């Protein structure tokens, strides 16, 4: 009884005896009210502090204030993603932030003609909406890569426009742009251009337009290094001269560099590449923000840049590789591990049927499903969920284990499982579920391989040594759904395939699931 009467500490962490304090505190505590406050302040500004209503939209301080509001809304949008519950609200904050930024800019006194703007917004809005509605969730990685390339190219165009007509942005006259602005412009355009071509290559690789294999040639690193040095040289010359020729040379060289940087990186490293390009697109926006002296662009660019960098770091950790190792590329092609080097010996393994798998899982108490890229390729998530539902009805405890680098972009598997209506609480991250494999009857690995390979723990010569893995080998039985016995992306054989308690199910992930469902229903 006593417990119920205690004040809830999380609601009133401060002593609120003073009514004035209580008032201020309540209002600042809730974000919605904080925004109401900001809005109120703006209204006060509008009605009392400016001479005429006309001058208010021309007031740079008001614009800056609203830009601050938009930046804050963007921060709240990211904060909302800390849980699924708050994420929708966060998204709304983000949309509001964008709306405020766009509308404020449209009202800017220097904007005099609206033809191009309207055409761009309506055309782009239409294209973007159609793409977002039609895209399949399995194609999400290439969609995001494609979107990144657009941010990069937009940055290039804005920088070029600023160079041609600095007066439109209030950064001086042609021929007398401050050197600082030129440095920022050069940096912005270089990062933007690298983001553009780099993302295009990533898109082509993910879409299967070019081979996902790493493309390498001798002297590649030397060439890239030379290009990098030349780029810095051009940037310095450009900043000193404001030469348009040098600007375009800088842009062309950056286009080339972006292309060459991503080309040698293999398909399974794409989670890192996409995160990295995400980060670049942010830095490019920040660079343009510095050029135009626009704090909203700087804030947003910094947020996005930091976000992409953190995701890259998480992905690198998930593979136990350094970012340099990935950028230098070539992984998977020339691995000198014992498995890849030696002649392929035939080792005995147990191939099972869908009926076997169905029987084993039906009689198990607990099953952990480990999905990988193969599940995404086969679009098997719906069939997989159906299978899990049947097992659950039989009283089996079914959960999903997600490796950080499963799939082709961060969180890819989670989205696909959510699409198939897998309950949010059934899907667990590596560190949350890894201990449970020891007390699990069946690990059902579908379309994943390297992320379960015990060689990452035991074989110091293995290219994947040190990578955190899901301990499926600790489960009583392991079922692998694979198309063939071919080793995974890293070119490493998985000795789990040959164990006595492993059952191999060959075939397309979706078909196998459907067969297991059939077997279970009989």
């Amino acid at each position, binding site marked *: 009884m006593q417990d119920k009467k205690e004040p809830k500490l999380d609601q009133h962490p401060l002593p609120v005896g003073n009514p004035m304090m209580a008032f201020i505190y309540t209002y600042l505590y809730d974000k919605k009210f904080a925004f109401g406050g900001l809005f109120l302040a703006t209204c006060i500004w509008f009605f009392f502090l400016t001479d005429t209503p006309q001058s208010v939209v021309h007031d740079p301080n008001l614009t800056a204030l609203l830009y601050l509001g938009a930046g804050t809304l963007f921060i709240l949008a990211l904060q909302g993603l800390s849980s699924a519950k708050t994420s929708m609200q966060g998204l709304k904050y983000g949309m509001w932030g964008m709306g405020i930024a766009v509308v404020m800019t449209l009202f800017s006194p220097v904007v005099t003609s609206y033809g191009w703007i309207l055409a761009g917004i309506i055309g782009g809005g239409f294209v973007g909406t159609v793409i977002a509605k039609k895209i399949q969730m399995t194609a999400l990685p290439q969609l995001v890569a494609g979107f990144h390339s*657009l941010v990069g190219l937009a940055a290039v165009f804005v920088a070029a426009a600023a160079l041609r007509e600095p007066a439109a942005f209030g950064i001086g006259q042609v021929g007398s742009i401050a050197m600082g602005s030129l440095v920022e412009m050069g940096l912005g355009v270089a990062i933007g251009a690298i983001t553009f071509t780099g993302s295009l290559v990533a898109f082509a690789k993910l879409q299967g337009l070019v081979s996902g294999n790493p493309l390498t040639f001798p002297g590649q690193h030397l060439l890239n290094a030379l290009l990098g040095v030349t780029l810095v040289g051009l940037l310095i010359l450009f900043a000193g001269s404001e030469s348009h020729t040098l600007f375009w040379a800088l842009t062309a060289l950056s286009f080339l560099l972006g292309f060459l940087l991503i080309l040698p990186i293999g398909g399974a490293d794409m989670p890192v590449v996409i995160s990295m390009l995400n980060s670049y697109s942010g830095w490019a926006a920040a660079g343009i923000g510095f050029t135009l002296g626009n704090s909203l662009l700087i804030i947003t660019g910094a947020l996005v840049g930091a976000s992409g960098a953190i995701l890259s770091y998480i992905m690198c950790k998930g593979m136990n590789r350094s970012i340099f190792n990935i950028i230098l590329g070539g992984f998977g092609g020339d691995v000198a591990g014992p498995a890849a080097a030696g002649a392929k010996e035939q080792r005995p393994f147990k191939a099972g049927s869908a009926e076997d798998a169905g029987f084993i899982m039906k009689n198990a108490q607990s099953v952990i499903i480990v999905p990988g890229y193969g599940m995404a390729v086969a679009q098997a998530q719906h069939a997989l969920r159906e299978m899990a539902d049947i097992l659950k009805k039989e009283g089996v405890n079914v959960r999903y284990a997600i490796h950080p680098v499963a799939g082709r972009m961060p969180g890819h598997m989670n989205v696909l499982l959510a699409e198939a209506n897998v309950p949010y609480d059934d899907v667990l991250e590596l560190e949350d579920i890894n201990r449970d494999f020891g007390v699990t009857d069946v690990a059902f690995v579908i379309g994943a391989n390297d992320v379960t390979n015990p060689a990452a723990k035991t074989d110091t010569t293995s290219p994947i040594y040190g990578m955190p893995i899901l301990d499926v080998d600790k489960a009583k039985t392991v079922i692998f759904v694979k198309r063939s016995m071919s080793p995974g992306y890293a070119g490493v054989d998985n000795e789990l395939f040959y164990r006595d308690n492993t059952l191999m199910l060959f075939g397309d992930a979706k078909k196998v699931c459907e067969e297991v469902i059939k077997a279970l229903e009989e």
Partner: protein
Amino acid sequence: MIATSPFIIGLTVFVLAVFVGYYVVWKVTPALHSPLMAVTNAVSSVIIVGAILAAGSAQDLTTQLFGGLAVFMASINIFGGFMVTRRMLDMFQAKK
């Protein structure tokens, strides 16, 4: 007294925003990393602000065209990015 250069003010904002981004993004649950990428992508298209200024206030036709193209591309991103994020987040909402 010498006024602070706009660059230094920008840098101040930038560094602080990086820190904010760092702490906020670490709190994002790994399950929502794909929506995070989609929404940051949409949000980074705030570069449309620069594009609007170029398209709406430049005198020269080429510059206007550059601005218009940038508005177009940023709009694809803004609409597409927010919509696809919404689609993803819809899937994560608890079903009744």
